[in-house]
């Protein structure tokens, strides 16, 4: 197996990174260890848990299942980018009010996913919202509090 690195330029949270990466490194590994953005968590590295969710050109994707070299021409947004931009202030507050987290391991993934789901459909139905959130795993909260938190943000936003 070749260990050679290749140059890649990534746009992460609006910043440009010129990096040398091995082609086999996942986007998750690269944003964590090369960009120092450790809010993207790695749980299963098999696409199951969703804790590594980031936005690639606005779409929520599993960053453990995409190679960094595949993201050359894409806009990558991590939890840090969303938080710094204030885009998810409502979601963060709602997670705290409704106990949407306990240990917090899954939380960045849920916040990134929830923000993308509400962006795609601000008045998403309860059933579709539950289905969409079932994409990610949480070992602590039992999910209901996460669903309640996201619902409350949907209701605030779609009411105005």
């Amino acid at each position: 197996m070749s260990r050679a690195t290749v140059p890649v330029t990534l746009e992460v949270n609006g910043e440009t990174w010129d990096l040398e990466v091995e082609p086999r490194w996942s986007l998750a590994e690269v944003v964590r260890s090369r960009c120092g953005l450790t809010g993207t968590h790695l749980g299963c590295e098999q696409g199951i848990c969703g804790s590594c969710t980031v936005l690639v050109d606005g779409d929520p994707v599993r960053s453990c299942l995409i190679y960094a070299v595949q993201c050359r021409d894409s806009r990558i947004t991590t939890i840090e980018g969303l938080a710094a931009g204030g885009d998810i202030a409502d979601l963060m507050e709602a997670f705290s009010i409704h106990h949407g987290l306990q240990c917090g391991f899954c939380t960045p993934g849920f916040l990134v996913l929830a923000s993308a789901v509400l962006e795609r459909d601000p008045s998403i139905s309860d059933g579709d919202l539950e289905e969409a959130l079932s994409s990610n795993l949480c070992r602590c909260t039992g999910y209901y509090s996460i669903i309640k938190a996201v619902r409350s943000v949907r209701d605030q936003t779609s009411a105005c």
Partner: protein
Amino acid sequence: MRILAENADRAKILAGGQSLVPMQNLRLARPEMLVDINGIDSASFVMVDSDVLRIGALARHIQVEEARVPGPLGGLLEEVGRQVGHLPIRLRGTFCGSLAHADPAAEWCALLATAKGNVVARGLGGDRVIAADDFFDTAFTTSLALGEMVVEARLPVLSEDWRFGTAFLSRRAGDFAVVLVIALIRVVEEKVAEARIGLGGVSDRPVRARSAEAMLVGERLNRELLEHAGRAAADGVEPLGDLHGTAEFRRHLVKVLVPRALSNAWGLG
């Protein structure tokens, strides 16, 4: 195509990566070389061409689900597509990648078999069209030759006299189904003129419940007949048991899900 052909024994195509990359991360697959097709924008089409829906190699699951194809096929794709994994998986994974991966419980594989679709495979020697029945060899194995690639999948557009119904059982939303049933019936003068029942998760590849199909032709559907069909379908399968369901449980699911899918198709409520 040339890179793929010249390295046929050590290269693999990387499409959505939603099956291949987990297998690599688990070291179940260790290809030496990946040929990433994600840059081929011209392969991401989903379009109706006279009576055929053509789905390009890079068309993502969600594009197929949301394709709004005219006639019953459109509704069928929407209903079946919603069952494939979760939103992030559907945004990346591809229809053709799912066919090439050939998971015996994959929704799109069962759909291709039920709707009598086919696959266009391209090698250096040119293109060939492979019918669904000849495409799935066994679990995770297709009749694609080394170095061949699926360039598109084709599904016949269904005329208005077709009706569809589906029934799935999975352990959690978004998981692969333990057993899934896709039923298609063509109804003429309130009788079944043609019936196709596709089953996933009951064999090493998607299969049709042909004996049950034969029982329906010429009939008006009622509960009793549907129960007979369910039993015939269950008798006709030899499921393998695994962690997600014993052989017996899967056979039982066929018995209850076949009537449910047919009743959804017929509109028994």
